[in-house]
């Protein structure tokens, strides 16, 4: 085992790492390995994974010594979860050196079985103010913004909050427009046009 982190192993959390579709190039993977100081003798890598303002720990266990391809596969699975940077913490004397991670939205989707990670409450709000026949493509508009703009820029958790706020803003606009149209109709009828 490597050195114990000064951050305390008690809060260490193991995450399930499943094989996934490639997220990054081999060149990026090599760079991560170099920045994270991964060597042949490493048995595990403990990480802080940052997602916007939040962070959590993850461990990649290496049973039979480091293999770059295996490391690459596991790293891709870990960072595909919407994290914006990772930092190795099992080297107490190593200076802070976060590695920025930019995952592609469609690749992130693939890790979740092809579905966008949109918040259910936000989708509910969108559906509430959308005609049935238009719900599919309008939910997809929000999913596109969520996956291609908000998640890469702010991380998954903040993106979910933005989704809900934007859904509420859109719902308010729909109500406002409907109210104005109804008032205009009423005025039109009242004036006899």
């Amino acid at each position, binding site marked *: 085992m490597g050195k114990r982190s000064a951050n305390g192993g008690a809060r260490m959390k193991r995450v399930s790492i499943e094989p996934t579709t490639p997220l990054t190039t081999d060149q990026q993977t090599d760079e991560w390995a170099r920045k994270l100081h991964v060597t042949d003798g490493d048995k595990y890598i403990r990480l802080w994974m940052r997602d916007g303002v939040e962070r959590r720990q993850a461990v990649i266990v290496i049973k039979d010594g480091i293999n770059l391809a295996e490391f690459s596969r596991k790293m891709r699975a870990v960072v595909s979860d919407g994290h914006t940077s990772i930092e190795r913490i099992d080297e107490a004397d190593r200076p802070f050196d976060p590695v920025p991670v930019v995952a592609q939205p*469609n690749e992130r*989707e693939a890790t979740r079985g092809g579905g966008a990670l949109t918040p259910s409450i936000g989708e509910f709000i969108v559906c509430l103010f959308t005609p049935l026949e238009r719900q599919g493509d309008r939910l997809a508009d929000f999913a*596109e913004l969520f996956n291609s703009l908000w998640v890469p820029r702010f991380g998954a958790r903040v993106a979910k909050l933005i989704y809900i706020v934007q859904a509420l803003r*859109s*719902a308010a*606009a729909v109500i406002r427009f409907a109210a104005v149209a109804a008032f205009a109709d009423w005025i039109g009828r009242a004036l006899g046009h």
Partner: protein
Amino acid sequence: MDYGAPGVAREGLGELERRVLMAIVHLRGQGYAISIADEIKQRFGKSLSLGAIYSTVDRLEKKRFVSSRLGEPTPERGGKPKRFYQIEALGQSALAEAREADRRLWAKGPPMGAPA
């Protein structure tokens, strides 16, 4: 105002409708809600919610100024297609009429309070 189609009620264009219609024209059949919102922000500097775009295109579609079609599904949209909007003859007439009304208004000098 005659839009050239029998049985169609006379319908004018609101300011937002005109902007959305112009964005749809500029996007040449490739305009969907997000790109329309981007186009309006770029051309008019006005940021609109998707709900405002939806309400407006629904109204334009109801007036038969625009029509819509579904495109190909894309992965970043969770495998769902985009709904593309394109302008119809009635919409082009309405836009031309609005432009002509503007031209007539400005031909007699700037409206009161407007910069010369």
